């Protein structure tokens, strides 16, 4: 019972990240499902005692990168209003959330991953570097660019008001 549960416990965080990464709820769960299946296939490669969460996020990164590189190119989000998971639609500031979805979609996949691993998943810069398989300096420069770009996008969409509703 332990093995399944240890992974089950990580699923909510994998779903949160996937949702923010690909925007669409069904596609996000596809990504999580592919990640879980690959994790089972590679289970013997997991080093016991190392961080299970980091390992699962690394697998998800690889699956994600393969998906966006493999034709037919997976198209991120339709231009039309994006279907929102029911759990999010009931949050009253749905408009601001949709702004955020759109703004994230405008970032490059590289920037979006770094921004979300650090800003949402609260990984350290070193952990993000490990999960993404890029040097620390690359993580920092992507993070910097992502934050500047996200700030500009949110300002542009909402006249600068959206971040103020957060608190």
């Amino acid at each position, binding site marked *: 019972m332990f093995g399944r*549960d240890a992974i089950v416990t990580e699923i909510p965080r994998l779903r949160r990240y996937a949702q923010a990464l690909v925007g669409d709820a069904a596609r996000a769960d596809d990504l999580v499902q592919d990640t879980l299946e690959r994790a089972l296939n590679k289970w*013997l490669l997991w080093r016991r005692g190392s961080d299970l969460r980091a390992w699962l996020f690394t697998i998800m990164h690889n699956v994600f990168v393969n998906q966006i590189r493999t034709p037919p190119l997976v198209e991120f989000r339709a231009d039309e209003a994006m279907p929102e998971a029911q759990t999010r639609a009931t949050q009253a500031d749905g408009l601001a959330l949709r702004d955020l979805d759109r703004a994230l979609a405008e970032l490059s996949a590289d920037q979006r991953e770094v921004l979300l691993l650090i800003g949402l998943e609260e990984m350290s810069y070193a952990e993000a570097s490990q999960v993404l398989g890029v040097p620390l300096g690359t993580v920092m420069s992507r993070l910097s660019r992502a934050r500047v770009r996200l*700030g500009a996008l949110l300002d542009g969409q909402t006249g600068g008001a959206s971040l103020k509703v957060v608190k």
Partner: protein
Amino acid sequence: MISHSVEEQELHGLSDGRLIASRRTEVEIWLASHPHEAAQVEAWRAQNAFLHRAYDPILVAPLPARLLDAIRRPGRFSLLRAAAALAWLALGGIVGFQVRGEYPSTERQTTLPYQAALAHAVFSPEVRHPVEVDATQEAHLIAWLSKRLGATLKPPHLEAAGYALLGGRLLTGEGGSGNGAVAQFMYQDGRGARLTLYVRNDASGNGSGETAFRFAREGNIGVFYWLDGRFGYALSGSAEKAELLRVATIVYRQLNP
């Protein structure tokens, strides 16, 4: 505009809570005379908070069956089980949430005690973001959650019982017949042990129910829950059952003076 210098990295570090305390103080002092950079740090922190606000509700949403099926495939399971037993030991203190041997049905996932225990398990281990609005902004917290739940909702004060209010967050519940809004208040005792009070709109479905205390256990989390008027309440924690009952009684009395 800052170039890609050490300073900018440190501003990111400050935004993300990654600077060591001594350096953090130095950078904060420096920011006091650099308003442009200070505003930038504030904006980055706001971005992080916005990300949490937007996507944290997914953490407590019921898991789709297909994802659970994905890790239930027979054949590999015994191997998985053996390998992961060690993982579990390594992770035990971090994970904090021990689901039962069988993952619960979707139906059971929507019950008040299960939802409350899950929300407790997800948020109580959080170091940086245990709450969305902290207790120093209590008036704002009350106004915000009351608006979302459609009735005045004040967090009980449990200092006398040894627990300080950390703050609260808004969640989305499943199974209630209200608007789906759920409030979670978090408390902490002097040793860092946390309790959460989960308040769900119209948990009974009829809106006028009142029940005695009931107790449920989900993994290592105990939950006392009851219905009162249009709300369902659940107090969760990994404390002893008697301790939970003691606090639950105080909560109940404060809500029904």
